[in-house]
């Protein structure tokens, strides 16, 4: 059973003429990192919200097709309780994801496990683990409202890590992080996949993720247009015509007139042009 299954899924937001998703089929497997990318409005965020069941439960609108998250239809009211704590959704802006009642970062990270009624010892262990993994342990006693954007984003991710989720849905999780922070989160994604979780990340961070994900799915106009191993897809020309972008080096090579397959990293570029 795939951790996440879309089969001919369509989704239209209320009052919208155009569908945000149509004929969308994809799978995300446990133990792997699946990377979604696409131009703005291509549907990657909607795909994640649908996978979490928040579309249509919170957003309204109509969903068609078959969508199973951990084997359950997330749009059903009964799925809320069944999936609670097993699916981690991380959204782009960290400030609005704070609980609103935590006085310290430690309390913030403990928010979800406490809501699920976990025993205190388990909560404390997971919170310590999660804070350490996101390197926010030194901020444990800080007021979450006083954190910088990057610290807040890492705190929010730690808050999800504390739950030991089976499925990660990450929407631009590194937008506020510096290079070190991004590397931290990428390493976390790999470790979570190694642990057996399914990691789905929607991101435009092409330079960062091509060595992290097993599968890249490029969305165009609400449906997956390209899929394959990231390096293969990014070296090609189709990724550009699909409205997405490849790595900076590949873009440079393309602008310089180099045909596909193009180099992806600085080292590959040097190897190519130093000849």
């Amino acid at each position, binding site marked *: 059973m795939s951790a996440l299954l879309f089969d001919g899924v369509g989704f239209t937001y209320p009052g919208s003429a155009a569908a945000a998703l149509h004929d969308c089929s994809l799978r995300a497997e446990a133990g792997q990192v699946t990377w979604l990318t696409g131009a703005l409005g291509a549907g990657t965020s909607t795909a994640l*919200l649908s996978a*979490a069941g*928040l579309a249509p439960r*919170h957003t309204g609108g109509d969903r068609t097709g078959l969508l199973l998250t951990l084997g359950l239809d997330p749009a059903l009211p009964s799925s*809320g*309780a069944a999936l*609670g*704590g097993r*699916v*981690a*959704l991380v*959204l782009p*802006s960290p400030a*609005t*994801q*704070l*609980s*609103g*009642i*935590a*006085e*310290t970062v430690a*309390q913030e990270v*403990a*928010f*979800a*496990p*406490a*809501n*699920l*009624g*976990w*025993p*205190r010892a388990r*909560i404390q262990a997971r919170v310590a683990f999660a804070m350490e993994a996101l390197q926010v342990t030194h901020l444990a006693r800080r007021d979450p*409202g006083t954190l910088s954007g990057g610290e807040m984003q890492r705190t*929010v991710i730690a*808050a*999800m890590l504390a739950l030991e989720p089976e499925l990660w849905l990450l929407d631009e999780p590194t937008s506020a992080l510096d290079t070190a922070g991004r590397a931290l989160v990428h390493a976390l994604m790999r470790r979570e996949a190694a642990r057996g979780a399914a990691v789905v990340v929607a991101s435009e961070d092409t330079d960062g993720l091509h060595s992290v994900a097993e599968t890249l799915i490029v969305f165009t106009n609400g449906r997956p247009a390209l899929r394959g191993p990231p390096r293969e897809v990014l070296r090609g020309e189709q990724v550009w015509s699909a409205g997405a972008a490849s790595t900076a080096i590949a873009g440079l090579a393309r602008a310089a007139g180099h045909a596909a397959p193009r180099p992806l990293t600085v080292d590959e570029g040097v190897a190519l042009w130093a000849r």
Partner: protein
Amino acid sequence: MTPGSGTAAGRLHPFTPLVLTLCVAVIAVAAPDPLTAAALYAVTVLLVVVTGVGRAALRALVPLAPLWLFLFLLHGVLGEGDRVAVMGLSLSRAGLALAVTQACRLGAIATASLALHASFSPARFVDAVADRGWSFSWSYLLVATLQALPRFRARAGAILDAQRSRGLRLRGSPLNRIRAIGPVTFPLLLGALAEVDERGFALETRCAGEVTRRTPLDPPADRAGDRAARWLASAAAVAAVIWRVFG
């Protein structure tokens, strides 16, 4: 809301200051004469000082002082009935009694309220409610609202400054000002709606509003002293009401 954790008041069980403040308010309203009211005020100040939040008693004097002056003038100086001479002034005896009663009532309530404010800790309150197994939703609602107030105030101020710097005229004719209501309130309201959207997603993902009983992260100790204080205060409040109604 400052945790005030360094003080004895901060170490009390969170329900204790709440119950005590409520009882002080009830007794204050029920107190019929200057002596009772003054005794209540004295006891309140004593409690507040003893629990380490004595500054609340002082801070209460700021709004109280002008009120006391007003009461003194209105009832004491301008009151009717037989006069009594105090320090060369001719004051109404009945008016003075009324002024003292009112002044002490207000003093007790203001002091207790400020002390409550100084010792309230949102996290401890949420933990106390969770410890009892009561609904998390209501305690979340209260605390989240309290935490939201300064955030919204700051945002409102920033919007006002931003619009002013863009040339929005906030003074002038009433029509001008009414026209300015939109540009000033809309950003705040729209921002709030967007935040509600995203925070709703986040709260759902983090299982807020679940029917499971929330685990208290650091349950506050409910000592014998706490319970005794709450029972005594409640009994005194009930007695005061009965005395006032039937006495």
